[in-house]
């Protein structure tokens, strides 16, 4: 009896609140908003929101406004799946644009496949997301892949006067894949290199000292790192204290966007100026008028003189979605999915195309050596080059 009473009480708790309006096009965005990954995830979500605000101001898409629902996925695959399913089942989102880590991406891709929702991944890089055995009609990626990134880095390292290379990466899909791509390509273009050491801290490691010591004991001449986000801040602080960068004469390349303005800004004087890194965007790049215009708008939107480089990925993800809906003339998943194949969009970093073969966009990145520039209170890449990934895509 008591149990029935309590159950009734609990059922009252579950009573739904105001019904959702059907008119806006709802897009769900699982993105890490807390902890070290938030350094990248938070601006990415803001970039997406900026695009949504801009396009809604112009009347939306197909006469309907876009509504973006951002949820904290905590950079955890399980949480991302939970959040994605809630977005689909409870909030009735039509599309998913989001996820950041290479564990979240493939996990949410499964959810998208089963629920037949178009899923555009703006950041996860692991090749596994669009590999032949995992590909399905509803998953698309506008980020670079580990193949592209690893190979681009290898081409840069091949030009250095070094032969003894060491790698340090997180022990999960992204770290493993990008390191593998780097090593394979490097060995191909410079057979004389020798991989003297590889370290695999767990994703989220806070104490890198044992790994750094073990690595430096093998006396590498250069280091390839794919440690990213706030974790790179921690790693490089500890590495700097142990004299790593001096020992290898700054022959260090940090993929996973170690040279983004976010990172150099947040580290200030602690940043190991002189290392190489990459970035999806840089407010100081300004190569095209379109980029300068976007940067100005972003700076105003974020109220930041030196706006984030991660907003662009959220922005581009939403751009592709909006263009595809327009091209398809509907929000039907199958039609939009079809419209995305081969679609070219003029993004702030230039024209990008999603190719039909594996739903992958030819998204390259900016690479450069960091230097201290008197114009800015933090290090920047100079010269900075956009590396076109087309020849790295199989």
């Amino acid at each position, binding site marked *: 009896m008591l149990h029935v009473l309590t159950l009734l009480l609990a059922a009252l708790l579950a009573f739904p609140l105001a019904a959702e309006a059907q008119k806006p096009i709802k897009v769900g965005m699982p993105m890490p908003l807390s902890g070290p990954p938030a350094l990248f995830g938070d601006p990415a979500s803001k970039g997406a929101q900026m695009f949504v605000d801009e396009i809604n101001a112009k009347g939306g898409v197909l006469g309907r406004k876009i509504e973006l629902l951002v949820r904290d996925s905590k950079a955890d695959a399980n949480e991302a799946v939970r959040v994605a399913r809630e977005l689909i089942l409870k909030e009735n989102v039509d599309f998913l644009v989001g996820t950041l880590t290479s564990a979240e991406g493939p996990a949410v891709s499964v959810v998208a496949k089963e629920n037949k929702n178009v899923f555009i991944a703006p950041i996860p890089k692991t090749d596994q997301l669009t590999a032949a055995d995992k590909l399905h009609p509803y998953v698309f990626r506008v980020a670079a892949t580990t193949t592209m990134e690893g190979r681009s880095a290898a081409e840069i390292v091949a030009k250095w006067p070094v032969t003894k290379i060491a790698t340090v990466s997180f022990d999960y899909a992204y770290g493993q894949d990008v390191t593998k791509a780097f090593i394979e390509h490097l060995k191909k273009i410079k057979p004389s290199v020798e991989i003297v050491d590889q370290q695999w801290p767990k994703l989220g490691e*806070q104490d890198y000292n044992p790994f750094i010591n073990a690595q430096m004991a093998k006396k590498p001449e250069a280091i390839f790192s794919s440690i990213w986000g706030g974790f790179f801040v921690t790693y490089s602080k500890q590495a700097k204290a142990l004299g790593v960068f001096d020992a290898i004469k700054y022959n260090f390349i940090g993929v996973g966007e170690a040279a983004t303005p976010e990172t150099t800004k947040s*580290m200030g004087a602690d940043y190991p100026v002189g290392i190489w890194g990459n970035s999806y965007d840089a407010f100081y790049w300004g190569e095209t008028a379109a980029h300068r215009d976007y940067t100005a708008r972003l700076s105003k939107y974020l109220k930041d003189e030196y706006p984030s480089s991660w907003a662009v990925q959220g922005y581009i993800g939403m751009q592709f979605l909006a263009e595809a809906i327009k091209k398809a003339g509907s929000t039907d998943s199958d039609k939009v999915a079809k419209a995305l194949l081969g679609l070219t969009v003029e993004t702030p970093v230039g024209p990008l195309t999603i190719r039909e073969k594996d739903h992958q966009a030819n998204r390259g990145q900016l690479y450069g050596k960091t230097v201290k520039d008197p114009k800015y209170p933090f290090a920047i890449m100079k010269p900075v080059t956009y590396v076109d990934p087309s020849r790295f895509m199989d």
Partner: protein
Amino acid sequence: MPDASFVFAQSLSGLTAAMFLFLIASGLSLIFGVLRVLNFAHGTFYMLGAYLAYQFMLWLGPGPGLFWIAALGAALGIALLGGVVERVLFRHLYGKEELYQLLFTYALGLILSDAAKIVWGTQQKSVSRPPELAGSFMLFGTTIPQYNLFIIVLGPSIALAFWFVLQRTRAGRFVRAAALDRETLGALGVNVSALYMGVFMLASFLGGLGGALISPMRATTPGMDTEVIVEAFVVVVIGGLGSLWGTFLGAVVYGQVLSFGILFFPRFSIFAVFALMAAVLIIRPWGLLGRPLR
């Protein structure tokens, strides 16, 4: 065959990690030894110590000597927090079932960690090393950051200070007595409630200090409380719940297992630590230096 300077470097980094853990775990061990409670909120005190240190650094700005003020201020702030918690809430749970006390500390941890999120946001914060100890020097062929050495020296110093207070002062004798038999101590006219509050505040001070001192070396970020609490549990269990030197030894062992673990079991050091904890509990449950508990 790993060379001597590498072994030296690796054991030093293990010691550094160990001394941080000792600072935190000592507070946990103290509370368990005297109050017989496993304080889940201790990890959150540690985290709040780091955030407070960050906040004080923001207000004070960079400059010589300011970091130490910030760290001390943070530790004192956490001690105050611990005192309030003990006086207002925790006191009412003495004598209730152990499970309720545990659950309360867990709930407290939840509340405080979210409070930290509300105040400081969800992005990670970074604190720089104090300029006095920002350098490093060479020893036996390895680079040793000065700050790491400071921590390695600080750990045993605090352990010794502790030992001195417990063994050689009146207050220390009362604390040891309270750990053995609180009723008799109360009957002898000692203000046991004040003693408990003092112990709780001291433990909180240590936890907060650990957090403040670790912030230049790591990231101050949400989630650091749950990461550290399990590590602290492992340390006190290995060493022996309630034993000060046990906690010290446990921390040292833990640090070395992690450090050298990545050599012998390159991707399995987290596994090794819990296996060690299980082994100790199976073979010698009261830990390396603990006394068999009633």
